[in-house]
């Protein structure tokens, strides 16, 4: 017998908000890297402006969680779910900040000629966005096993980051005039690497929500 319909309706609403916030941030990452590929300053500016909306969404969700705790006194798995949401939205918000960071680098680069065609950075982007998307699915499905697997995939992102780092360092060694441009691309890659690390934090929260266990499931080498 369902006796807490108000509570469950509000919890459903929070879950939908979280998914919406997730898709806003996925879009921001794609757009920031597209802006880099296309040298599109307008698009970069739009990513920066849109990040404000992500921040607002985060506050909105957090406020709903606080209201729910204050008025409904959730316990056990209900309590763990709300606490996990509060943690997850802060991770998603920071991933949004990383996208904004990439957009700012795009503006810094301006119309400098490209150093090289982008290959691994788009790969890193795909992988990171895919991990973020699926991590939020594990939240909805309360699937801690898949969450643990997704966290392990962070190693692939770390490997791509290594590869990018090595490649760009060799550019710099060969021709010091590339140092500025190569360094900026390393910053971009670093933002993506950090984003994937934050996805592993989301996965940890899903594991906590489902099992009640607080544990670090994959420690990034960076």
């Amino acid at each position, binding site marked *: *017998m369902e006796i807490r319909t108000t509570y469950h309706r509000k919890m459903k609403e929070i879950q939908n908000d979280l998914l919406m916030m997730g898709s806003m941030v996925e879009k921001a990452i794609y757009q920031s890297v597209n802006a880099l590929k296309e040298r599109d300053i307008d698009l970069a500016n739009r990513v920066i402006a849109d990040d404000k909306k992500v921040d607002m969404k985060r506050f909105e969700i957090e406020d709903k969680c606080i209201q729910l705790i204050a008025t409904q*006194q959730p*316990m056990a798995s209900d309590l763990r779910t709300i606490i996990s949401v509060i943690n997850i939205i802060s991770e998603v918000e920071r991933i949004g900040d990383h996208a904004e960071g990439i957009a700012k680098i795009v503006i810094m680069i301006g119309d400098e000629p490209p150093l090289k065609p982008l290959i691994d950075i788009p790969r890193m982007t795909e992988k990171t966005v895919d991990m973020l998307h699926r991590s939020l699915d594990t939240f909805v499905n309360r699937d801690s096993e898949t969450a643990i697997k997704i966290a392990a995939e962070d190693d692939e992102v770390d490997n791509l980051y290594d590869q990018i780092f090595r490649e760009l360092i060799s550019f710099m060694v060969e021709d010091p005039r590339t140092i500025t441009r190569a360094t900026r691309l390393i910053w971009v890659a670093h933002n993506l690497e950090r984003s994937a690390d934050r996805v592993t934090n989301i996965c940890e929260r899903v594991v906590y929500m489902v099992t009640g266990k607080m544990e670090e499931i994959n420690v990034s080498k960076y």
Partner: protein
Amino acid sequence: MKVDIDNEILVKRDIGQTTRMAVRDLNLYYGDFQALREISLDIPERSITAIIGPSGCGKSTFLRVFNRMNDLITGVRIEGSIELDGINIYDRNIDVVELRKRVGMVFQKPNPFPMSIFENVAYGPRRHGIKNRIELENIVERSLKQAALWEEVESKIDQSALALSGGQQQRLCIARVLAVEPEVILMDEPCSALDPVATLRIEELMRNLSENYTIVIVTHNMQQAARASDMAAFLMMEDDRAGILVEYGPTAEIFTNPKDKRTEDYITGRFG
């Protein structure tokens, strides 16, 4: 790398390690009706143990087992044992009056006697043979202080207890129990007739008393159990309406990560 936050970290307070009361394979019948089935648990000393569960699951019946209050009801039959400091309180040679002195009880509705505040608290010690006025005065003052009521009633100690507020009356009843120096205090929904402020005062008082006494409380109020207890026992009814112990453990664990699905469903309000 695995960093397991052990649940013991969450249970901060250092509760007594010694078992004060032990229930073993308890079955209780009202005539043909079985009210409690196969309950076993240990109540640690100097701690607060909360008994929670839906209405009719046998919480109050279970609480009354600890000082044989059920003896007063005809047709009650008990199997198993309840030990107080290792001695079965249902043994034939147990003096029930002495038992109830060691295991005191506070009821849902404050029930002061229609006499003065002083006489209410002095009643128990008098019954146990203390006649010296000064000794009684000392006991009354100490008990009222322990019950956090002394300052409020010091000036009107000879006035009727019935003039006190509900919260004050309940603290008076606690003082009355404390006056006979019990080891265990049983509380049956002690705050359900009180307003929120009076409720918090009683909970604070329970917390202080648990430094020296073992407290077992029955409560309907889930937040109260979460706030005020160290250990929590979840009882529920089986299909034949007999109460069983579903889960028993540290309160922090029961309320954040219960092991049994039925406990989870109850405390999250999915049934009840």
